[in-house]
């Protein structure tokens, strides 16, 4: 077999919003760029995003600005966010949305003809730019078409559209190559033929998205196997905050085959209410103290809010996701769930059928086609589903450079820090654009000052040998069954509510699967062979699960996407700690690291009484760092 080889300035792994935005930035700066993705071009996970992209444009309520958005993001993340990422995100998000419009995106409009913005959980003002409930499709298609536009430009100027910007679809990267301690490229295989492929490049941007497939019930597609998390670990980079996973409160629960599929938060943003099997609107019981002054404690006020947001508090259905997910979990555990183990979510009483079909068209379609439920007439049944990983590659906020590995960058869901312990809805889509662009800029700077770093034959052969291995074995373990075993463990022992004892059990069991997975064998040949593909994906998921379980067992408090039954409260001392995962070739190791303190000018954006709920008295006394 002859090895397919390429040389580029930058290789971007991932064609979701983050990867495509990074690629555009690097190409615009004159570099040659390869975009590599596991699916066809335009199918990355970003396409599934529904609700919208958060940016404080202030089109609907002009009280909004980056400072309000920053505050909401920090509150949502329970102040565990890297402040600098949250700051950059809040400041730059509007420009990134307007830029999409210049590239052809058509968002829904306000009466004045501006981009319309909708309400979402945890956002003080209507802030989410959207297109019905298919915002992710608009984002990815716009970026895809922008890539094509740049290729057309290259075609006109050089006669070759793909000379300096090429998409390698249906290619899986299995290793980041390093030479002399620095990034030298990426290695992988074509899914279609099974043949191996080498990219030599001094800079690699990881934009591989999330890890949902590690869990049994998830809104993620097969692509969400934590590849970038594992690739980064194996390349010597760190992961931060891996204990924090977002369980979206509203996934479908019935029929079984669609369990986990997302029901967008816009349903609640548009006025959907949650009730239990007794007909109680239960969210009023679950407003935590830190949010009491922002959320209505009675239905009358909650209903008035939809008409007058300046003089009423918001309905508790719009609390941050972790709160709503835990509330639903408690209701079901207390025996007040629906027949299929969820709760009811209803918009039919507040909005007319016509408005529902217009504002939530894909939800209507999804329930009608897959569950036989007409949401303009009936309530939906919903329950928590594993949705988003807050943890990810530890990066320098301004450049998205991975800490510890020269030439490596990470952006989008695969990067950690931005969302702290819990992400607000809508903040991901703008995160992709803000930090995708910054990763592109970071890579450009790096390539300009470092130049090429070719990979040695020995390095390439080592990467190749790993791909051969599962075919060489016969009669070994089946990747599908090991994956199912892993999903059972994470679901039961590392899920929405955790305990020390269960996490300990999980860590042992994951180690056992990892041992057995070294013996996976594959049937069939290399050509488009899903069993072979899963063997690699599984290895990544195992590392992610190990990192999550090991970080979770150490964090003895409950915060955002990490709830410990044995340590139920939030603890200000723990807020100052990040868990950093690294990989020694055998196992994941965790160390505690101090969270960067809020600088004074950001500290001063908050009412000190609010900060007292999160910070220690020493931190408050200091009043932020210089």
């Amino acid at each position, binding site marked *: 077999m002859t090895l397919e080889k390429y040389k580029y300035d930058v290789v971007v792994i991932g064609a979701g919003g983050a990867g495509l935005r990074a690629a555009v930035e690097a190409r615009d700066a004159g570099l040659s760029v390869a975009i590599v993705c596991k699916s066809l*071009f335009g199918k990355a996970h970003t396409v*599934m995003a529904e609700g919208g992209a958060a940016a404080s444009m202030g089109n609907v309520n002009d009280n909004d600005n980056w400072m309000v958005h920053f505050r909401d993001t920090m509150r949502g993340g329970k102040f565990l966010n890297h402040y600098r990422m949250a700051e950059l995100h809040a400041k730059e998000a509007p420009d990134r949305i307007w830029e999409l419009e210049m590239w052809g995106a058509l968002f829904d*409009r306000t009466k004045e003809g501006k981009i319309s913005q909708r309400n979402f959980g945890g956002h003080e003002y209507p802030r989410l730019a959207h297109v019905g409930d298919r915002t992710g499709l608009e984002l990815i298609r716009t970026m895809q078409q922008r890539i094509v536009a740049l290729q057309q430009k290259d075609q006109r100027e050089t006669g070759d559209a793909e000379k300096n910007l090429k998409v390698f679809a249906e290619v899986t990267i299995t290793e980041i190559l390093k030479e002399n301690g620095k990034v030298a490229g990426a290695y992988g295989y074509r899914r279609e033929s099974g043949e191996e492929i080498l990219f030599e490049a001094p800079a690699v941007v990881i934009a591989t998205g999330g890890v949902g497939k590690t869990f049994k019930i998830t809104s993620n597609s097969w692509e969400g196997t934590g590849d970038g998390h594992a690739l980064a670990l194996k390349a010597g980079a760190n992961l931060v905050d891996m204990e924090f996973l977002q369980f979206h409160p509203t996934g479908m629960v019935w029929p079984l085959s669609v369990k986990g599929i997302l029901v967008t938060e816009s349903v609640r943003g548009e006025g959907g209410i949650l009730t239990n099997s007794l007909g109680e609107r239960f969210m009023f019981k679950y407003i935590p103290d830190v949010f009491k002054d922002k959320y209505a404690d009675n239905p009358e006020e909650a209903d008035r809010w939809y008409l007058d947001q300046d003089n009423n508090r918001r309905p508790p259905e719009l609390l941050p996701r972790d709160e709503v997910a835990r509330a639903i979990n408690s209701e079901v555990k207390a025996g007040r769930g629906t027949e299929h183990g969820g709760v009811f979510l209803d918009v039919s009483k507040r909005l007319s059928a016509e408005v529902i079909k217009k504002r939530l068209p894909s939800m209507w379609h999804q329930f009608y086609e897959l569950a036989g439920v007409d949401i303009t007439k009936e309530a939906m049944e919903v329950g928590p589903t594993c949705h988003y990983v807050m943890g990810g590659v530890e990066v320098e906020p301004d450049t998205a450079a991975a800490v510890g590995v020269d030439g490596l960058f990470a952006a989008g869901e695969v990067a950690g820090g931005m969302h702290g312990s819990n992400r607000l809805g809508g903040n991901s889509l703008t995160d992709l654009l803000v930090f995708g662009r910054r990763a592109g800029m970071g890579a450009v700077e790096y390539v300009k000052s470092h130049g090429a770093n070719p990979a040695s034959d020995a390095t390439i052969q080592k990467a190749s040998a790993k791909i051969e291995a599962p075919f060489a074995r016969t009669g070994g373990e089946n990747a599908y069954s090991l994956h199912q075993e892993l999903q059972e463990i994470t679901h039961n022992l590392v899920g929405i509510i955790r305990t020390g004892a269960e996490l300990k059990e999980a860590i042992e069991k994951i180690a056992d699967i990892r041992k057995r997975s070294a013996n996976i064998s594959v049937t069939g040949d290399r050509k488009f062979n899903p069993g072979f593909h899963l063997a690699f994906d599984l290895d990544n998921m195992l590392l992610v699960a190990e990192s999550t379980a090991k970080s979770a067992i150490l964090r003895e408090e409950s915060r955002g996407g990490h709830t410990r039954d044995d340590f139920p409260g939030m603890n200000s001392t723990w807020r100052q700690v990040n868990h950093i995962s690294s990989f020694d070739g055998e196992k994941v190791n965790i160390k505690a690291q101090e969270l960067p303190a809020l600088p004074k000018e950001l500290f001063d954006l908050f009412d000190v009484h609010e900060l007292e709920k999160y910070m220690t008295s020493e931190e408050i006394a200091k009043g932020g760092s210089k």
Partner: protein
Amino acid sequence: MARTLKLRIWRGDDKTGALQDVTVEANHGEVVLDIIHRVQATQMGDLAVRWNCKAGKCGSCSMEINGKPRLACMTQISAYGEEETITITPLRAFPVIKDLVTDVSYNYKKAMEIPAMEMPAGMKPGEPRMQQVDVERSQEFRKCIECFLCQNTCHVIRDHEENKKSFAGPRFFIRIAELDMHPLDILRNRKKTAQEEHGLGFCNITKCCTEVCPEHIKITDNAIIPMKERVADEKYDPVRWLGSKIRRREEVL
């Protein structure tokens, strides 16, 4: 609740292949994609199929089910009778790579041939003001999930490989229409080039594309016909004579 389902799945590659019979368990509420996954996990570890979202949003799982172009993730098995054997084959208009996976690169080539959006010079980010009614027409076409079912079903290329060179297909007619109706795009003559360079003239408005579109985009009524009408205003309408030269859609399977 469980039932036993009889399937015939096409297995093979670009050289050879055949329909294979399988029997598999199915549960209430499952879709064809679930069944394929069960076959994959229990009987045919190397069965090739594309999918992503499992919710009709990404357009990856396009295939032909009992001869009809469909999304496997949106096709309920309850739509088929207890005794019925469900036949699952790859998209016919595109070359097979393996099993249910086809080479759809034709579509990406066509995307590259359509000139990108062109903004008015001097327009700055944040400046555009557009009314909802003005964006809605293009928004309908931007709902497209690129499942390529319309491309697969269009008789102009379904059985006529030779037409592919000069025919962009319904997916890209709506792309041209989208840009043509886009309030900010200033590139002129999109309708004319649709006719002259992208093969709009081959289309004889059979509406088969509209029928299979899972997004219910009115491809013919809202994109193709308006573009044709306005082209016809400008020059002699070739649809009629082309129509007679192209064979009617044949019965499939």
